[in-house]
């Protein structure tokens, strides 16, 4: 046997614990003991185990209860029931509750060896299953963008298509929705993927600095320009330029960029000779640019120039079915990075995460999971680990009617329950017929 297991022996009898402990250690497994069901659950909460050998007769919490709780909280953990000849019925019952096998005390040493051999095969199968599941999970990912909701699937389909053209793209979406990730994915799938990808946050740079960063300058062009420097529009040649927060640039810069996009030429600051440039522009904004145009804050001609293709990224609150997937992804990421054994979220906490509005979107979710993993002392994240999210959710824009609120809430509950009408109706405190009527009245659809 080349697979080593992490085993816990749960028995109130010291002699049994010790005998099995030594036997497993001799077999080269990692072994641990617990004198009660409660102690076992506490240890299981702190570290993962492949298999638990649980005595069925124990005071306070019996083996069946331990089995039930283990199967509920840690379904991958294998439970083998140890029982005396007198209580075979309980062992059979335990099998119905998900026990992997049972051993009648006292058992032959080779019987135990056989059970262990079977368990090793099971663990191998499970890890193979996890591997395949991991491959399947990757299907719900697109160049690190995660989601299985209809808007995200649509996005995954569109990205390879738009990547092939050289047209300018405008990515719209709230802060933290992953606009830069989408831009990177487009670049990676495009014929320009071997060229550079340069991202500039326009909102973070004052106008003069942005101009010099983009266009470059000649030595002595302005105070402090002690040497000539190529601008990003030149450096990015052959690649993709991502201008984040394009809605923040000044009208003058809009004119300058419009000219570059039309003529494919730039003039460095302080120079006269134009230089040819070759890049693809992807811009992003969280602003409502048509409104900015009507307010006179944004040039219409520039808008149409950068907005040949528009990709809209839905905020997280509009694609709540992606939350568990994202949460699991970030949990794995930070569990690995922090080397802490935090590998699950309670259903209550998952529900809480799905109810929260996430004004900061995926970025806020990632930060919340990272914080929770770092501070958690248990393997499982509960609602209490997300207490920092208890602040009131972001106010909605504009006045909301009661009907709008009702529609949104019904939709939310349906999505949380995977459109299970019976369960959703129970949660809403109405009967199924009423819920069906509401779905019809509000024209609610799965994936809306």
């Amino acid at each position, binding site marked *: *046997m*080349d697979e080593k297991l992490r085993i816990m022996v749960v028995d109130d*009898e010291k*002699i*049994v614990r010790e*005998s*099995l402990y*030594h036997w497993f*250690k*001799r*077999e*080269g497994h990692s072994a641990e003991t617990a004198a009660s069901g409660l102690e076992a659950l506490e240890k299981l909460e702190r570290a993962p185990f492949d298999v638990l050998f649980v005595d069925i007769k124990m005071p306070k919490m019996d083996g069946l209860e331990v089995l039930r709780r283990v199967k509920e909280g840690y379904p991958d953990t294998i439970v083998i029931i*140890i029982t005396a000849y007198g209580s075979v019925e309980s062992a059979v019952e335990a099998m119905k509750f998900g026990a992997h096998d049972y051993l009648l*005390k*006292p*058992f*032959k*040493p*080779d*019987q*135990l*060896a056989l059970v262990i051999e079977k368990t090793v095969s099971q663990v191998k199968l499970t890890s193979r299953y996890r591997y395949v599941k991991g491959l399947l999970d990757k299907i719900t990912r697109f160049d690190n963008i995660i989601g299985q909701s209809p808007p995200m699937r649509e996005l995954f389909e569109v990205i390879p298509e738009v990547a092939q053209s050289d047209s300018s793209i405008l990515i719209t979406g709230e802060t933290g929705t992953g606009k830069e990730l989408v831009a990177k994915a487009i670049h990676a799938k495009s014929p320009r993927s071997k060229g550079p990808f340069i991202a500039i946050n326009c909102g973070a740079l004052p106008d003069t600095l942005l101009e010099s960063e983009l266009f470059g300058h000649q030595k002595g062009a302005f105070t402090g320009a002690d040497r000539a420097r190529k601008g990003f529009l030149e450096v990015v040649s052959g690649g993709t330029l991502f201008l984040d927060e394009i809605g923040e640039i000044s009208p003058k810069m809009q004119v300058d960029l419009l000219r570059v996009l039309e003529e494919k030429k730039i003039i460095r600051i302080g120079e006269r000779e134009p230089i040819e440039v070759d890049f693809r522009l992807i811009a992003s904004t969280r602003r409502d640019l048509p409104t900015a145009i009507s307010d006179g804050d944004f040039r219409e001609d520039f808008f149409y120039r950068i907005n040949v293709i528009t990709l809209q990224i839905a905020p997280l609150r509009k694609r709540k079915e992606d939350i568990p997937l994202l949460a699991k992804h970030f949990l794995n990421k930070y569990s690995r990075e922090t080397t802490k054994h935090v590998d699950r979220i309670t259903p209550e906490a998952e529900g809480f995460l799905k109810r929260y509005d996430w004004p900061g979107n995926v970025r806020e979710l990632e930060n919340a999971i990272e914080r929770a993993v770092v501070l958690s002392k248990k393997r499982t994240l509960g609602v209490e680990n997300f207490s920092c999210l208890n602040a009131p959710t972001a106010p909605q824009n504009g006045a909301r009617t009661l009907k709008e609120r009702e529609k949104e809430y019904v939709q939310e509950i349906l999505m949380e329950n995977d459109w299970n009408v019976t369960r959703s109706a129970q949660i809403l405190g109405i009967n199924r017929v009423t819920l069906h009527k509401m779905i019809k009245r509000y024209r609610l659809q799965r994936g809306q």
Partner: protein
Amino acid sequence: MPDSIGPEKGCIVVLPIGKVPESALDAVSDSISLYFNHHTRILSPLRTPQCAFDEQRRQYNAATIIRTLESINFEDDAKVVAIVNVDLFIPIFTHVMGEAQEGGKFALVSMYRLMKGGVGNRPSTSKILKRLAKVALHELGHLFDVVHCADEKCIMHFAGNIQDIDHIMLNFCTYCERYLEESMKRHLKPTSLCSHHPELT
């Protein structure tokens, strides 16, 4: 195997408990000398501790016998391999053919089940002695912290029944041998010369 270590480093002693044939003691002692390359000595027999007898199971509790041995002064000896001819058990198992303290001092080997053959046949004496040597060396391996081995032929491979014992070889695999070599260096600290045990004579 390590270089021969003299008696001044502490002996590995073979202790008969109850009536154990001399040939069995010699077989175990010779095997230890050969495979562990260490000084061994056969002690005078000890009475089978009756406190270890379980009326219900009609067997002797191996853990209780080991506890009895712990109460006797074996200070000068490195390891003690006790041989019994009664059937042994530990509470969780129906029977055990041997028992040892992981990295400890005492190992216990039972001849009882080794004397059984196929279908009602009694195996030859040489076969019984070979089995006994295998179990004794296996348990002694545990005293030096060697765990069960995946190699089905290695003496440290788990043998749950008599067929398994016959299947394994009277030899350590390369990895167990290497581990044993290192472990013996750690375990066998220099002690005074082997002496008699007044409690046992």
